[in-house]
């Protein structure tokens, strides 16, 4: 590959609300520039995780290098970063943005601006990006490009008169996008002869290559054999391979300023790869590090415990590998009387939690129990000491507590007029406070303050269902506030099940207690003995349900004299029982834990 001077490089992100067509546009760009042959193209090639293809969402930011011969005859290197759209993965977005100079803002011409369009575009503006609006799906009869252009100008304040009109799906005007990237987005700046400064954008574990690091070079060069130093930790490593994503991993001789690529350096310790760190040359180090980006702050915590206690070590290793690939996820060792050894894990949201749990089970073949997700509370004891509470089970006796505060968010919800009523009802049910309500055409934009606690469990699902999928949602943290909060314990046959206890506002406690008892009644299969399920605040029971004993379970036939077969069956059943966690002598299936906490209606 030939060296590209800075003026012929463009690094850009594609940002959009979910489903507005980012991944499809990325596919078209890859195809049009010939990075993959038609035969190699599969739909949404960049969504490489099995989970992404299944759920149709992008979870990880992806990067790819394209070579484009522009209409002016010049050849450009374009580095594209595809980013996730869901609010839980905003952190991934911010990292991608830090590695680029410009963004394509893709807006569905039939849907218009949505909540995540706003959130993402503000992030791009914060990163000083040049932004080119792209109106997608103009092939749809419902497309209203003029109205949407107006909306972009009114709501975002961005000049949309030269928005590129395309259909990513039908391949209309993809050249227009490529020309806009070349002529309207700025080239990177940097100095090849200055000491090496490279931004550690991402890292992950590859079964063949070990730890792979995604870098963006600001100054200097990176090449094979070079001894590099991680500026925050001071650890040093020898580069083994330098390459680019084209889109497959392709080794190159070196990487220069403005370029995006990967390196491998026989890195063993996950802790050495801090996303946002600056990588420099050990022999000629840079004087100071790049600005990096703010570390992510988990907003939801839950415990993850292996079903089989012997899997603890495997869980530890797997979390290490996942963490490499997902810097926004945090974990620390924890132990519980009922569940043994496990980890308390922090996530950016509930979708993030579900995805990590699913990846642990699929990619690492682990069976886990997840305890009730909790936000981080702050409490002040009567003696004046303050602490953070990540785990409802750790909540001290209420008489020792002076105040408890909970995190609030500021949510922006955009929704067609018809569904506004149900959305407002939902927000009020969840203790929301209206901040603002404005209209953009026939779409309402409601700004609400809400306790994060009320949003964490299933707000997003509810929002989608009451608006038939038309509402969009985004939020930002908005400080802590004191609240009348109580811990609700769940007891199974009088034994408290820590993994199911949670904190709620007193006004919601009865309702939540009832709902979780009803849910558990459906989720726990009938067993030999009847099961009492109770929700309690302190010693006061606020809800109860009983699961009756199963009414029949016996093999009719006796298999003549073949007792060995019966004995084997018994052994198998006993083995299966051993693998189930028991609480108050009751087997609670793993799936019940998270499912029980989701609220309906």
């Amino acid at each position, binding site marked *: 590959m030939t060296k590209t001077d800075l003026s012929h490089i463009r690094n850009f992100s594609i940002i959009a609300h979910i489903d507005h067509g980012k991944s499809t546009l990325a596919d078209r760009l890859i195809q049009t520039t010939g990075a993959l042959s038609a035969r190699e193209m599969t739909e949404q090639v960049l969504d490489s995780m099995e989970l992404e293809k299944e759920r149709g969402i992008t979870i990880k930011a992806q990067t790819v290098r394209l070579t484009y011969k522009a209409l002016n005859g010049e050849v450009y290197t374009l580095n594209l970063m595809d980013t996730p759209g869901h609010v839980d993965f905003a952190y991934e977005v911010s990292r991608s943005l830090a590695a680029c100079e410009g963004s394509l803002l893709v807006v569905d011409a039939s849907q218009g601006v949505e909540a995540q369009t706003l959130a993402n575009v503000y992030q791009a503006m914060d990163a000083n990006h040049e932004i080119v609006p792209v109106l997608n799906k103009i092939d749809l009869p419902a497309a209203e490009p003029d109205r949407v252009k107006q909306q972009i100008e009114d709501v975002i304040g961005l000049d949309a008169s030269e928005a590129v009109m395309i259909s990513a799906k039908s391949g209309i005007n993809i050249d227009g996008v490529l020309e806009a990237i070349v002529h309207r987005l700025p080239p990177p700046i940097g100095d090849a002869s200055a000491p090496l400064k490279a931004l550690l954008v991402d890292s992950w574990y590859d079964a063949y290559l070990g730890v792979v690091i995604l870098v963006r070079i600001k100054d200097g060069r990176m090449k094979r054999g070079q001894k590099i130093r991680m500026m925050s930790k001071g650890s040093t490593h020898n580069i083994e391979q330098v390459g680019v994503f084209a889109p497959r991993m392709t080794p190159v001789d070196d990487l220069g300023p403005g370029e995006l690529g990967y390196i491998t350096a026989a890195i063993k310790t996950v802790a050495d790869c801090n996303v946002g760190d600056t990588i420099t040359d050990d022999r000629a180090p840079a004087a100071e590090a790049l600005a990096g980006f703010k570390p992510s702050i988990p907003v939801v915590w839950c415990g993850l415990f292996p079903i089989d206690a012997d899997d603890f070590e495997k869980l530890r290793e797997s979390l290490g590998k996942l963490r490499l690939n997902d810097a926004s996820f945090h974990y620390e060792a924890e132990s519980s009387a009922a569940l043994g050894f496990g980890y308390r894990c922090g996530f950016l949201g509930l979708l993030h939690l579900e995805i990590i749990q699913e990846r642990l089970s699929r990619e690492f073949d682990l069976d886990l129990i997840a305890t009730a997700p909790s936000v981080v509370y702050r409490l002040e004891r009567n003696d004046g000491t303050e602490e953070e509470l990540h785990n409802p089970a750790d909540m001290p006796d209420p008489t020792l507590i002076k105040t408890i505060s909970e995190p609030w968010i500021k949510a922006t919800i955009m929704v067609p007029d018809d569904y506004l009523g149900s959305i407002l009802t939902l927000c009020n049910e969840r203790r929301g406070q209206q901040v603002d309500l404005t209209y953009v055409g026939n779409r309402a934009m409601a700004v609400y303050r809400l306790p994060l606690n009320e949003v964490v469990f299933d707000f997003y699902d509810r929002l989608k269902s009451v608006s038939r999928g038309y509402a969009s949602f985004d939020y930002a943290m908005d400080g802590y506030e004191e609240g009348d909060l109580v811990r609700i314990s769940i007891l199974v046959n009088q034994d408290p099940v820590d993994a199911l206890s949670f904190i709620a506002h007193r006004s919601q406690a009865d309702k939540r207690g009832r709902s979780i008892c009803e849910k558990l009644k459906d989720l726990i299969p009938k067993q030999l003995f009847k099961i009492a399920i109770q929700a309690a605040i302190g010693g006061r029971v606020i809800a109860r349900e009983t699961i009756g004993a199963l009414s029949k*379970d016996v*093999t*009719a036939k006796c298999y003549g*004299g073949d007792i060995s077969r*019966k*004995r084997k069956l018994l052994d198998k*059943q006993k083995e299966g029982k051993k693998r189930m966690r028991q609480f108050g*002598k009751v087997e609670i299936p793993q799936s019940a834990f998270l499912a029980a906490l989701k609220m309906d209606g």
Partner: protein
Amino acid sequence: MSGMEPLALYIHWPFCLAKCPYCDFNSHVRERIDQARFFRALRTELAWEAARLGRRPLASIFFGGGTPSLMDPATVAALIADATTLFDPLPNLEITLEANPTSVEAARLRDFAEAGVNRISIGVQSLNPIDLARLGRQHTPTEAIAALELARARFPRLSFDLIYARPGQTLSAWRCELRQALALAADHLSLYQLTIEPGTAYEALHRQGQIILPDDDTAAALYDATAEEAANFGLQPYEISNYAQPGSESRHNLAYWRYHDYAGIGPGAHGRVSLGDTLIATRRHRAPEPWAQRVETQGHGSTAEEIVAPEERGREMLLMGLRLAEGIDAARFATRTKKSLIDAIDHQTLARAIDAGYITWDNTRLRATGEGRKRLDSLLTALVL
């Protein structure tokens, strides 16, 4: 002395006219059956087993299958003669034969009676023509009733089998069919709820959702109704699926449930026999022809025999004994297994099960109640250590 344990003798006939889609017994369909060859092999194996067991009291003989009513009656006669010569028959020796009610087999009932069979067990399965066809049976309800009439005239003791909790069967339909069956005046009935067995045609249909079994509440209601109807005709449930007039229980099957010694002859047959102080789990090669060949070359078709250690004896005795309404006698448990009954079970489960009315225990006898027997699989998983 364990050598004096009376023996129950099982003889397996592995052939059927057709394979029923729900059946996972060791049964095979053959165009032609070499009756003479299997006759010789069964006799040889019986002699081999008798040689190692020694002369002991013989309490029962059971010809099971497969379809033993397809056996040449002369074979049955010869095997009975051999058994009663090799062992010491008790005066009230019970000799049962399983029969299918097709007209061909019904015609031979007299010959079987003459051969010495004194108890017949007929595989009626259903009195509903559509359900019989669905069960893949070769007979009609009319044939079944005719076979029962004939059998009643020929044999002092008569039992028949029905399968219920069939797909789509309602409570009232079953009550009606069962009453009709009870009116046919047998002293014993085996009433089995349909079980989906691995590897059968029914299993595949079940997996595809084409066969839907009743849920546990419906199954329980069907089970309770069964006991109620049977009681109206004087039949008591003495085992999970077996109902008899007092005194008419199958003594042969009781030997399994009470965990007495029993010897199994023929392909796939299982046994539990004491040799001195050792209890051996015996088993025979399953496939009929290779079994016969082994008997021809080495005198027996035995394979993979195991010694049953005291621990395992205790578990086996619990698995079998709690199926019986009479439960398990603690003293007999201790002599048979060399373990004390109370050490073989989980005390916490026992306390809860007594509390829930599933178990009774008076230090001499452990008994699963009707409610306990209805949930015996779960109960055993929790109770047996």
